[in-house]
């Protein structure tokens, strides 16, 4: 989950999120250098007496400041497109989970082998136990096996919602009448929090998502106990 006053990304829990973090570092370094250059040029402008009011052409500098930004954009675009296509790969998922958005809770269905479905409501602040996270805890978490490719099908029963888990790099819109698919692969066990990411009414901020990634054996025990 995020810590207070956090500005950066959460630690990555999936390979895609690791790639996104690295891409962000790469782009941020380029942004930092361009910002340094611009700050330097601004400081130069403040202290120069040089003026040239009859400039007719400046072919050389115009060539440089056309080609250089183009190169910079290509350096940013190539890794970006690589990750974009990587996010669309389907790597033979072993499990399918359906997620339906409602006002204002999520419901989950594991229907691969047995008919298991449950709703996931936020725990109100007054009912939290000590140590639990305000506006993030739910009554029924989404328990999933770790290191397994999972297909998540996302839709909505009423208005637009969005199913988002930042540490896994997931955000997919839940659109009524449409089935969106995303692929999830958690690399470490733990609890991963997310919140609805599309305005959906008065309680839009109060329908969180909690994934509980566990070893496969625990997942099998859990699914047997839920039936």
């Amino acid at each position, binding site marked *: 989950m995020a810590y207070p006053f956090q500005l950066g990304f959460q630690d990555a829990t999936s390979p895609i999120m690791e790639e996104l973090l690295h891409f962000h570092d*790469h782009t941020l*370094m380029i942004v930092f250098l361009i910002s340094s250059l611009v700050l330097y040029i601004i400081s130069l402008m403040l202290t120069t007496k040089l003026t040239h009011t009859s400039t007719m052409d400046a072919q050389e500098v115009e060539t440089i400041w056309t080609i250089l930004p183009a190169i910079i954009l290509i350096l940013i675009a190539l890794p970006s497109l690589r990750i974009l296509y990587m996010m669309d790969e389907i790597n033979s998922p072993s499990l399918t989970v359906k997620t339906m958005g409602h006002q204002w809770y999520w419901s989950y269905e594991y229907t691969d082998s047995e008919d298991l479905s449950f709703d996931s409501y936020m725990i109100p602040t007054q009912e939290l136990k000590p140590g639990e996270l305000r506006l993030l*805890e739910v009554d029924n978490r989404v328990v999933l096996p770790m290191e397994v490719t999972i297909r998540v099908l996302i839709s909505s029963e009423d208005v637009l919602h969005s199913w988002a888990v930042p540490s896994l790099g997931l955000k997919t819109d839940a659109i009524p009448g449409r089935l969106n698919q995303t692929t999830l692969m958690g690399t470490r066990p733990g609890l991963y929090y997310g919140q609805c990411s599309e305005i959906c009414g008065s309680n839009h901020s109060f329908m969180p998502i909690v994934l509980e990634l566990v070893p496969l054996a625990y997942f099998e025990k859990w699914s047997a106990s839920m039936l």
Partner: protein
Amino acid sequence: MAAAPEPGEPAKGKTFKLLGILDVENIPCARDSVLYGSLGSAVAGLGHFLLTSRIRRSCDVGVGGFILVTLGCWFHCRYNYAKLRIQERMAREGIKNKILYESTHLDPQRKPANGNGGSGVTSSTENPATTH
């Protein structure tokens, strides 16, 4: 679930960021790149000034040197870091597969059995870790 930070622990949100955006403490290769860039900037700017005695132009050369050296170190370091991550991932997968599939027909070190109807038990050889 995440525990609240203890009173003695430093707040996690207080990392130092260059220009308020670049977290040099936590981004791999950032600190080294910026330090090498600063060194390159100082060398280039100072060298140019010593050769030409032109202050403004030397400052321009210094800034240009900073950008070029930082970028060069950054790409070089990130390329090596990416290769290292791939090797780590392959090693992790190899260890996992070795543990999971040892003594089964899926054992990655298992040689295919000869066609004489033998028991199929083969001797395992050392797995040469071929990293380049």
